[in-house]
């Protein structure tokens, strides 16, 4: 049972880290702008990462068996009032796998690969616009991470599409925009505290982004920087429990460019990737995303 728990923690880390790296940029609103009453933003996207290396506890990169995580998700914002926006991130199809390990000498399968398909952990939340009509926008978001994904998938029980942990993220976003020679530019920043349960360490999350809208508002280019720092206050920080430490105290500082194209005022597509500059106990390969969105 102990072994099972520990191996579960590993894949838990995979899902968590991938989510942390990508969700801030691709799914969860990372700006202080909220929806008007009755308005909305809806996005279907495919996000994936295939990783054969990870940042170790000393920040160096070591190999691991090639693993993949794929999320097909719905993301939506809906303006309940002009100041209050509801947020939902729902990965309705999530797939995780790892490769076969093959002897290069004999061709024998040493460890067979496995996969699991299910829905993934889901986030719901509320954003409140504190400053909406001024030049500088300010909002606060409460986001709840619902552990409805699988926490012990595959024959070995080490594959997960969720971490089994309920977390609450409280975040403040600030930002503003200006127009320079018919190009609309904007920038935003956020800072948040993520309270995690089940012995996971709490986290500080932070990020900054700049973007521009070009060519008659057809193209939107964005560059995001984001990071997570662990407070290392989880119960699994006990050195006697190494696997939990790995799952708990992951950190990273990442960058993620995104390019979007608006076919119409309401419909567009976007593509992005995210990669960590540095990290601890996270996978090192870049993650990619492609999606279509609808603005109402």
């Amino acid at each position: 049972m102990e072994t099972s728990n520990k191996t579960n923690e590993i894949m838990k880390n995979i899902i968590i880290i991938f989510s942390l790296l990508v969700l801030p940029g691709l799914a969860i609103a990372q700006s202080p702008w909220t929806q008007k009453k009755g308005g909305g933003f809806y996005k279907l996207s495919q996000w994936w990462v295939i990783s054969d290396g990870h940042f170790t506890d000393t920040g160096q990169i070591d190999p691991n068996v090639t693993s993949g995580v794929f999320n097909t998700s719905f993301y939506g914002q809906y303006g309940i009032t002009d100041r209050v926006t509801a947020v939902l991130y729902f990965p309705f199809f999530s797939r995780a796998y790892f490769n076969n390990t093959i002897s290069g000498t004999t061709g024998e399968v040493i460890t067979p690969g496995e996969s699991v398909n299910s829905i993934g952990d889901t986030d719901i939340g509320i954003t409140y616009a504190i400053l909406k009509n001024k030049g500088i926008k300010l909002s606060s978001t409460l986001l709840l991470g619902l552990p409805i994904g699988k926490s012990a998938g595959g024959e070995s029980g080490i594959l997960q599409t969720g971490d089994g942990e309920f977390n609450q993220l409280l975040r403040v976003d600030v930002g503003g925009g200006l127009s320079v020679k018919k190009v609309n530019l904007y920038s935003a920043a956020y800072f948040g505290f993520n309270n995690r349960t089940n012995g996971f360490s709490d986290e500080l999350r932070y990020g900054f982004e700049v973007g521009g809208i070009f060519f008659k508002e057809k193209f939107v280019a964005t560059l995001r920087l984001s990071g997570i720092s662990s407070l290392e206050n989880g119960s699994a920080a006990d050195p006697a429990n190494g696997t939990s430490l790995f799952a708990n105290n992951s950190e990273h500082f990442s960058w993620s460019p995104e390019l979007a194209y608006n076919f119409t005022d309401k419909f567009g597509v976007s593509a992005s990737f995210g990669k960590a500059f540095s990290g601890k106990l996270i996978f090192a390969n870049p993650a990619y995303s492609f999606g279509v969105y609808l603005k109402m």
Partner: protein
Amino acid sequence: MKFICLLLTGMLLTGCIGDDIIFDTVEETVRISNPIDSLQVGDTFQFTASYLNNIGVEENQTILWSSSDPSKASIAEDGTATGIELGQTQIIARVELPTKTVADSMLLNISNTTTTPPAVTERSGSIVTTSSYLLQGDFTLREDNGDLILEFDSNYAASSALPGLYVYLTNNPNTNNNAFEIGEVTTFSGAHSYIISGIELNQYDYLLYYCKPFSVKVGDGDIE
């Protein structure tokens, strides 16, 4: 709906389980299992040897025995040596493979008595990291009432950050395949020990630290 189907199809196509190749080849070896120091003139002694293949697994192969100086001691096909005349000779055990010969040898004194070396009851070594994770320390492997005791000195230290870290005895330090699993690592610093049953002291030549979930080697140590 078309877009969702496209996404799901693309995901399933790109998310197929592939193969990771582990480079796990080691040199084939022959080991004379029961060396002696000297053989009395007129006495006989039955030598035995084993062969480990290119992944470090014991394999049945015909052992070819020979003596470098048959006038001092002869050796039969089954490994039975006979002392003939005072002096020295090399006893050689070899396996002929399609592309090469693998052999082990020992110096045998032909004298007035047959003597065997003191029984080895203890082996030792040091583990070193082969990854970016901390792993170090000296260890001793010794016999104890039919079991083996693997003892680590106080200078032992291992990273507690790596999940699913296991320790093995093996003849192939490149993989945990065919290795004897001692257990999951739960002590990350200081002196500690493992009790191992069903294994002989000279059966394995390496201690291996391996991360099972990531299928990667973390470190190893020769058992001297």
